[in-house]
């Protein structure tokens, strides 16, 4: 399938965020994705440039064909034509902890300069101001995937100096953080894709670096919306705008009911 030019001029920032995330999946990758945008990104990848990605869903689903608009890792829409319907242990222990996942994809409420992710609490853990759902499989994905991709909207409060709680470890406190903690993937590649930019971990210092900007977004806007001070790549790239074909697939085949992209393409 060729899903290249012509370039679309009618897309939203959220759509490009998901499309950019999907570009990080290579055809044939073994992928474990959590609910929400991660699930949408792998569905898009499977229907475009990575038809042979092997999705592993934490509830026990191996290599399904992803049907449109799944809302949960327990959704019947991601069990279709799987090669195995098994257990959480099959997925999270025997694939993920076994070290077989090429790329893991999660979301998160807070991400800090070391790429640590918080999806547990805002405020003091013992007396939280806001309680979030908790780790789920996210801690496991962050611990064991060879590459980690985090998708999140770029809002100031989501990017603090230090997360209130490390649900899913990034580089913890510096370049040796993962190694010191004994994580099985001490030199993990970590990428953050937001609606404003792409950040990547700089392994030399264990901190996030802005690597590319979304079309029309300035570095200042990124910095204004980030509480920590990220590193900035010497040659700051621009994220490629999507082709019309990707936008069509996303709207017609991935989320035709507009569960994720309300209003997109309707203006």
């Amino acid at each position, binding site marked *: 399938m060729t899903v290249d030019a012509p370039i679309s001029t009618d897309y939203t920032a959220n759509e490009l965020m998901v499309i950019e995330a999907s570009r990080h999946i290579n055809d044939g990758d073994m992928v474990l994705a959590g*609910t*929400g945008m991660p699930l949408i990104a792998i569905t898009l990848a499977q229907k475009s440039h990575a038809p042979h990605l092997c999705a592993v*869903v*934490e*509830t*026990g*689903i191996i290599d399904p064909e992803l*049907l449109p608009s799944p*809302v*949960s*890792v*327990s*959704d*019947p*829409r991601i*069990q*279709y034509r799987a090669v195995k*319907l*098994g*257990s*959480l*242990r099959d997925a*999270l*222990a025997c694939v*993920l*902890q076994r070290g077989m996942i090429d790329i893991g994809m999660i979301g998160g409420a807070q991400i800090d300069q070391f790429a640590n992710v918080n999806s*547990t609490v805002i405020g003091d*853990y*013992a*007396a*939280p*101001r*806001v*309680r*979030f*759902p*908790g*780790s*789920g*499989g*996210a*801690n*496991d994905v962050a*611990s*064991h995937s060879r590459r980690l991709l985090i998708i999140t909207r770029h809002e100031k409060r989501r990017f603090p100096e230090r997360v209130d*709680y*490390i*649900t*899913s*470890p990034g580089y*913890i406190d510096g370049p040796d*953080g*993962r190694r*010191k*903690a*004994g*994580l*099985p993937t001490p030199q993990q590649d970590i990428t953050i894709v937001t609606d404003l930019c792409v950040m990547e971990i700089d392994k030399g210092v264990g901190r996030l670096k802005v690597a590319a900007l979304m079309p029309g977004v300035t570095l200042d806007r990124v910095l204004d919306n980030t509480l920590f001070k990220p590193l900035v790549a010497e040659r700051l790239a621009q994220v490629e705008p999507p082709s019309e074909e990707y936008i069509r697939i996303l709207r017609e085949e991935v989320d035709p009911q507009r*569960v994720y992209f309300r209003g997109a393409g309707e203006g």
Partner: protein
Amino acid sequence: MPVNSQSKVMTAREAVARFVAPGCVLGMGGQNVGRIPMALTHEILRQGIGGLTILGCNLSIAMDLLVGAGLVRRTESGTGNLERFGTTFQWRRAIEAGVLQHRDYSHLAMVSRFLAGEMGLPFMPTKSLLGSDILNKHPDGGDGYVLMDNPWGEHEPVALLPAACPDVAIIHAQRADELGNVIIEGFAAHDVEMVRASRAAIVSCEEVVSSEETRRRPELTAIPYLYVSAVVEQPFGGHPTSVYRAYDFDSDHLTHYQACAREGGQMYQKYLERYVLGCDGFDDYLERIGGVKRLHALRQAMQGMM
């Protein structure tokens, strides 16, 4: 006492009255919007069995109802949520208000704890959780895990997690036979490990089949009867969540529940009264959420995905 010739089929009312005691540790099966044991949970609510500690990997709407009704003292899980439908709001509010104890683990950590339980082991190792605040900010004074070095490695820490052995587990499955042999279709989540780790287990199912059928194809048995205390036949017993190959989740009802749970107060009490406490059993609930027509539509939605 012969175990392989006794029928364990009984009503939800009888099963819950016999096997769920006040103050017990309750394991819950299913995940998010899939195969949540709703009929059994409604029965616990109607019987008002309180002081519960609830364990699971993901805990979802069933746990939220029990928390909302004030029947839960403590939860231990990887998450409390309904994913795209939001957090479990009653649970979130109870934690924020400091009236519910909660112990965080990851999903792999929780299934590892059930795995230890089903194998008769006191603990299970994992390489998850390392470096995270799930270990470091521990509310129980450190009895939730122990770090050790892998004796066959070189500075390779491993986290040991204590076995989780519920007093009683509740799950919902597609089929069970009269002895208690269980067939699960679609993802199994942590249900098998949890049931086998528990002291008792109640299995509700869409359909009770004959053990003759089980014995014709014993490779399909997910859980043999040895671990099962009671079998409850309740079609649509997972509503408003989905049961694979049987029916889709009920998006409208989930959305309505979430609105009530988020709002809380009077509105939540009205939900409880209308859909649970005021119902004469789960079939009555199924009438109230839309009856045959609604259920038929959910079946058709699932058929469309097959």
